[in-house]
């Protein structure tokens, strides 16, 4: 569903992504892990073209994401890819409900009443129906991120991207966000998650990609990856994680 072939990206002379060849299949959950600065976030942000690539090809549902296209086409493409940010990025001037209703109404042209019903369903799904009228400032970090997930789901995207969704959260709020992600995975959503939550990776992921210095060094099923990592850099990464 998401296919990277020979994707390269540079920031000036620094190569952020190097020869990325990988695929996320439909219904699959891929966890991208690796040390910070390894290019995980850059990689996930190329999928909906928040970052441009230098060379190579990136297909989303067969469509070449980085081909020249009109801005209308790009907007339509982006609306089919749910994106969840580390810093939530809820719109602080809108209530939780309005945050979720905004793009269905203004991008998809759904009528207000229908958008409202749908948004309430989604907020209910992330356990926040009671907070529909609250503004982001009144919600905890975990609640904000769950609203952000509902907002991304509102356009009914066939795939969801998560860029370190729990990294900005207090530890006691990580669980509630992971629970929502887990239930999405269970419902068969195609997901690509950059995360440091190795428990989540082990339990939910179909594949783990390990990245360092802009390359995917290892791609394996979680059991194999965690029990028997092949690449020395991955072995060191995992032992560093275990040591604390």
């Amino acid at each position, binding site marked *: 569903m998401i296919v990277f072939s020979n994707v390269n990206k540079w920031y000036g002379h620094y190569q952020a992504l190097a020869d990325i060849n990988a695929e996320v299949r439909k219904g699959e959950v891929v966890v991208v892990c690796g040390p910070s600065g390894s290019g995980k976030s850059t990689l996930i942000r190329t999928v*909906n073209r*928040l970052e441009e690539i230098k060379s190579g090809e990136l297909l989303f549902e067969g469509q070449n994401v980085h081909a020249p296209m009109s*801005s*209308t086409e790009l*907007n*339509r493409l*982006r*609306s*089919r*890819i749910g*994106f969840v*940010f580390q*810093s939530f*990025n*809820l*719109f*602080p*001037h809108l209530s939780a409900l309005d945050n979720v209703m*905004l*793009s269905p109404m*203004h*991008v*998809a042209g759904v009528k207000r009443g229908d958008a409202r019903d749908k948004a309430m369903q989604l907020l209910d799904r992330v356990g926040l129906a009671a907070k529909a*009228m*609250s*503004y*982001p*400032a*009144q*919600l905890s*970090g975990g609640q*904000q991120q769950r609203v*952000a997930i509902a*907002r*991304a789901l509102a*356009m009914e995207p066939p795939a969801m991207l998560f860029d370190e969704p729990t990294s*900005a959260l207090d530890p006691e709020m990580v669980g509630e966000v992971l629970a929502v992600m887990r239930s999405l995975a269970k419902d068969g959503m195609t997901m690509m998650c950059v995360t440091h939550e190795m428990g989540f990776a082990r339990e939910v992921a179909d594949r783990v990609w390990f990245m360092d210095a802009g390359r995917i060094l290892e791609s394996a099923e979680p059991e194999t990856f965690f029990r028997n990592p092949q690449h020395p850099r991955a072995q060191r990464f995992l032992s560093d994680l275990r040591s604390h």
Partner: protein
Amino acid sequence: MNSVFEILRDNWLLLLVGQYPNGPLGGIACTLILSVLGIVLAFPLSVLLALARLSHWRLLNWPAGALVYIVRGVPLLMVILWVYFLVPLLIGRNVTGFVTMLCTLVIYEGAYLAEVVRAGIEALPKGQMEAARSLGHSHLGAMRLVILPQALFNMLPSMLSQFVSTIKETTLGYVINVPELTFAANQINNQLLTKPFQVFFILAVIYYVLCWSLTRAATALERRIEAKRAGPRATVAEIRAAGLVQPVAAEP
């Protein structure tokens, strides 16, 4: 002090509306209409200028930047004189001092407000635009629905202080015979001849009261919007807390 009240008693109508209905509307009414129209018409211009300044498209970006820099780089009086002599040439007939002053204020305030709007937009976290774009909103759609509502709210105090400046700037209309408040006061002074301090004391007090009450109104308005954002059932303490916590919670 007595003479102040005497002057007020004899001339309050002139100070309030000028020669109206026997002549053009003037005095405080003229000053207020000029300021309000000036800022109201300058506002959309300033948003367009700011968007053009932020555009990656040079055809928009450069002319807007040039206009803003030129207008901000010359004194208001210079713009007044330019408009005064240039507009009749351009449209081929004379215009009233009021229209001249209004055009000047729209251009001048438009350029200043454009920088306020631009700063307001640039001060928002980058993630707001990214989130809107990744949901599929167009650049302009994201501006209209996500960026501008926040930026303009954050700018409310600056915009009101700009409005207060505008009120003060209308006094310069005096040089091209706009019958605003300063002009009216000067008429009174010319009649009385011997009481300039009293007359201009009254003038100063009127301007002060106008501007001070507007500043107060701005503060009250800001509080109300903040209270609304803090939620319908929030207590005063929560409102205060939300006002303080908000930027941190929105962008940790």
